[in-house]
């Protein structure tokens, strides 16, 4: 009977194609010379280079962390190329100048890059390997004083803003992968929403790794000034390759007093094949700092990557600030995920909500790791954590590592957890009503993830639901 639940057939990874563009790729290896070359290629000011070099020196003295509940062969950091850009890079005035091959790639991925589709109301910044290939709707946003551009451009055009906030939430010395990113980050997106402005559309970045044996080290910085509102979404894909590729990104969010930042991720990096060959190592540091009366909300749907290691966190610095974390993490075949969040309550009457849904299928291994910390001055702090795991089949694993540290007597911290298994009885029930096994699994899983999906912008909620169906397709026969 259990054999029916075990017959996994994974649908082909649809985004796994390679685009044939000439690229300008740095030789493998990492040293100060490489850091200097990257900075030079990006025409950066001196302070930026200095920051990178400090990060690089720090990184050299740091050990790679091995506390996550994941297993992988040692990474040879000298065998990775740290920069790859499509050739013929010049300043792009409009999307018409972008290599048509790249535009075709985004078309195949369904990213609305061209001008007509922009009318659909999503502003997109697309990162191809290391560089940004075009930001749509820039002019529209500029009218409101909103800055949405690649971080590389922002360093040149708005150095004072970038300098003020870059590293203010995730310092270069934060952890091994953050230090590496700080040294070699190639591009990423920068968002600044001025005081009191409500960003009228979803801002979106699409990341694509194309070149082989390169790493992608993008860095995103979102700053919402006092009373501002912004909703931001990132999506990710990569070609299928038999070797592992490293993706070590950093995302920093700053919510100034009264601001709201909503950050959603649909992560579908290549997960490797059924035997666990290839796939992306997704080692990412994401953190937000929330000032008085502000709110930071993370929503993530993680279906891809061979290994995921990320903990989108909120530092609840200001009084009455709010942090939220809604997560769906799916592992199938040989995927491993160690993901969760940290909510650090510093200000008074700070509130945080954590809803984590982990789904494990095949031989996948899924760990939730979370820290809720209430500092001595955080009077009236409140946390609610709900952590649910669902198992599909009997070779997968689900683990929960919640850490709760409370140093203020008035705090209220709640933690609820559950583990369930997709039952043969549920699948049979749905099949008896005429649904296929795939539809049945997809329906059960979508129901399980409902509380998270409802946090996503609508068009992305649909995409996430479909992605989930594809990831788990055939996981029950």
């Amino acid at each position, binding site marked *: 009977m259990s054999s029916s639940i075990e017959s996994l057939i994974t649908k082909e990874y649809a985004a796994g194609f390679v685009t044939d563009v000439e690229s300008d790729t740095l030789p493998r290896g990492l040293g100060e010379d490489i850091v200097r070359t990257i900075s030079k290629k990006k025409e950066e000011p001196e302070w930026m280079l200095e920051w990178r070099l400090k990060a690089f020196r720090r990184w050299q003295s740091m050990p790679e962390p091995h506390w996550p509940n994941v297993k992988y062969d040692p990474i040879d950091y000298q065998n990775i190329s740290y920069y790859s850009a499509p050739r013929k890079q010049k300043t792009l005035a409009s999307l018409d100048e972008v290599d048509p091959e790249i535009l075709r790639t985004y078309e195949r991925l369904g990213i609305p890059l061209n001008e007509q589709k922009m009318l659909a109301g999503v502003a997109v910044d697309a990162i191809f390997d290391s560089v940004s290939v075009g930001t749509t709707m820039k002019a529209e946003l500029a009218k409101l004083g909103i800055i949405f551009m690649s971080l590389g451009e922002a360093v040149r055009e708005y150095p004072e803003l970038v300098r003020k906030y870059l590293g203010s939430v995730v310092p270069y010395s934060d952890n091994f992968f953050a230090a590496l990113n700080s040294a070699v980050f190639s591009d990423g997106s920068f968002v600044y929403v001025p005081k009191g402005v409500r960003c009228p559309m979803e801002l979106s970045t699409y990341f694509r790794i194309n070149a082989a044996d390169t790493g992608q080290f993008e860095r995103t910085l979102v700053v919402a000034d006092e009373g501002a509102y912004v909703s931001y979404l990132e999506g990710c894909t990569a070609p299928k390759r038999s070797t592992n590729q490293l993706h070590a990104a950093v995302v920093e969010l700053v919510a100034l007093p009264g601001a709201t930042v909503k950050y959603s991720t649909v992560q579908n990096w290549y997960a490797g094949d059924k035997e666990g060959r290839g796939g992306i190592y997704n080692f990412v540091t994401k953190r937000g700092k929330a000032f008085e009366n502000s709110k930071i909300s993370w929503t993530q749907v993680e279906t891809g990557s061979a290994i995921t290691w990320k903990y989108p966190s909120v530092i609840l610095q200001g009084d009455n600030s709010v942090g939220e974390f809604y997560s769906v993490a799916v592992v199938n075949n040989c995927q491993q995920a160690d993901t969760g969040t940290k909510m650090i309550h510093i200000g008074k009457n700070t509130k945080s909500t954590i809803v984590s849904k982990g789904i494990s299928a095949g031989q996948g291994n899924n760990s939730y790791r979370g820290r809720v910390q209430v500092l001595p001055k955080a009077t009236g702090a409140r946390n609610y954590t709900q952590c649910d795991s669902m198992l599909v089949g009997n070779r997968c694993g689900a683990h929960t590592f919640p850490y709760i540290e409370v140093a203020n007597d008035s705090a209220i911290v709640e933690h609820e957890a559950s583990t369930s298994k997709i039952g043969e009885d549920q699948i049979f029930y749905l*099949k008896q009503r005429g649904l296929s096994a795939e539809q049945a699994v997809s329906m059960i899983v979508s129901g399980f993830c409902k509380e998270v999906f409802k946090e996503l912008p609508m068009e992305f909620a649909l995409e996430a639901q479909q992605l989930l169906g594809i990831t788990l397709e055939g996981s029950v026969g």
Partner: protein
Amino acid sequence: MSLLQIRGLTASVGDKPILRGIDLSLNAGEVHAVMGPNGSGKSTLAQVLAGNPAYEVTGGSVTYKGQDLLEMQPEERAQAGIFLAFQYPVEIPGVSNAYFLRAAYNEVRKARGEAEVDPLEFADLMEERLKIVDMDPAMLSRSVNTGFSGGEKKRNEILQLAVLEPSLGILDETDSGLDIDALRTVADGVNKLRSRDRSFIVVTHYQRLLNYIVPDYVHVLAGGRIVKSGGKELALALEEKGYDWLTEGAHTAEVGA
């Protein structure tokens, strides 16, 4: 031609034989009650007809609308018009009843070569079908069977039956756990759905359901075999005398085998 023809059907769970040779024929529009003591195989028969993979068919044949039923997947059986009202309806948290029902309805329509319906058309249909089981429309926005009372779950099964309009409805102990009012509502619903081209197999332990859903034929199952068949009066005899007078022989056979 009969709608359903069961010949020498045997089935087991694990190594344990449950059905030991069932023969049963059913024509369009007929209602057959299958009765029997606990462990006689009544529910197994219902599950096997629906294609539950937990049961292994070890012999015999089942022909449904001229097709080999045992070769069909559970969803194909459902699409071909076989509906099982579960004894223990399963909870699907987070999936609204309306969403689930529409998905099922559209699959069945697709199989019949009919166009799928959109949520608005479906809402109209639901408004009408809800009346059959006297159900509160609010139930449609709740998660499938989640937190439903026993009575609500059974009513929800009959609602699904009313929506999917099967050719053969199999009611597996639909009366179990129902108080008399709920029993009457559910039975009324089924009676409204009886028609010349819809047959039912009503599996029940007690006669009381058959006061409301009056069967054309009654079969008594014991030890995995039909030990007696008759008209509706057989159910009344069982009510009076119990099962023992019919099942003694079956038990002996089981010991002997």
